[in-house]
């Protein structure tokens, strides 16, 4: 049993893959892509791993509660169902936290990181259309009182096959079904 109330996802949790149970390791490693679109995806996972569906549901729930799993489901292709851009700002150190909060408050912003560079705030903005994106970028600049540099993706050279987790388990998601 997991205690969802007292176990919120937070930034302080950091673990190695070997800290997880064998079932959790399999859940983290084996289903990063090509998950079936069947009505019962978790039962399918359970069947493949030879465990009960209830065990899969419980483990998946706790992996999400402690923040290791962000979500289960689709990763949308950039610029296919909407438009997005990577934006960067060069923010004075004493204003960074305040500006970052203003930027993060926009629901169109998903990733927002501080990086050690003259351009120190980097975030991704996603919108349903070019017009909407332009408006959001403009509004971010207005509210944050900072100019931004917009760097939309022009080409994607990366085939997303999930992230390889090195552990005692075998199998590398990236090498496995490369043609699949």
């Amino acid at each position: 049993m997991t205690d969802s109330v007292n176990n919120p996802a937070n930034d302080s949790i950091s673990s190695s893959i070997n800290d997880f149970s064998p079932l959790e390791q399999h859940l983290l490693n084996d289903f990063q892509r090509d998950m079936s679109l069947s009505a019962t995806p978790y039962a399918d996972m359970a069947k493949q791993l030879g465990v009960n569906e209830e065990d899969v549901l419980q483990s998946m729930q706790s992996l999400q509660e402690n923040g290791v799993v962000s979500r289960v489901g689709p990763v949308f292709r950039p610029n296919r169902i909407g438009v997005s851009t990577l934006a960067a700002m060069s923010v004075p150190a004493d204003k960074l936290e305040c500006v970052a909060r203003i930027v993060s408050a926009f629901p169109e912003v998903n990733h927002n990181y501080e990086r050690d560079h003259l351009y120190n705030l980097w975030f991704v903005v996603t919108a349903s259309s070019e017009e909407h994106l332009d408006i959001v970028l403009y509004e971010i600049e207005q509210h944050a009182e900072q100019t931004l540099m917009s760097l939309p993706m022009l080409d994607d050279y990366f085939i997303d096959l999930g992230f390889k987790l090195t552990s005692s388990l075998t199998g590398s998601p990236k090498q496995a079904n490369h043609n699949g």
Partner: protein
Amino acid sequence: MQLNKQVLHLSSKDRALIKAVQGGLPVVSRPYAEIAKKLNSSETDVISRLQYLMDNGAIKRYGVVVRHKELGYTANGMVVWNIPDDKVEELGICIGNYDCVTLSYRRPRRLPGWPYNLFTMVHGSNREEVTQKVAEIVEKCGLENIDHTILFSTRRFKQRGASYTQKNTSSTAKAVKLQLVK
């Protein structure tokens, strides 16, 4: 690699579905039935529309999305490269092939301040490991004469799946700002 570059035409029903699933599927026995309930739709309908989105290249990957940081990959370096235009595809693919790399995008230069046109994300358990992996990539892909720099993340303010919302929500930002000013 050049396929699927156009924005797909989507109905309002599709948009509602995307909005319902972009934060992840519910962790219950019949997740699509639960989503269907919220959308006033049917389980079969939800699955077939997702299949449509997948068949049309709107979905890049379907499955468990892990957070690198929580798994011990606490350092991520955004490595940016200034590559001659006629070489960027070949080298972008080469770099994107490494296990520790999770992105390889071409983006515009913004001269004079920003000369870099290829963005890659390299993960490791610490900065030294990331730097070492970048050195390996430089050697293996033959990038010795290519200018690059590593931007390490020092703080994560927000990380979640993309949100393709329609409406304009600047009021939220305004509210936050007012709070901060007070």
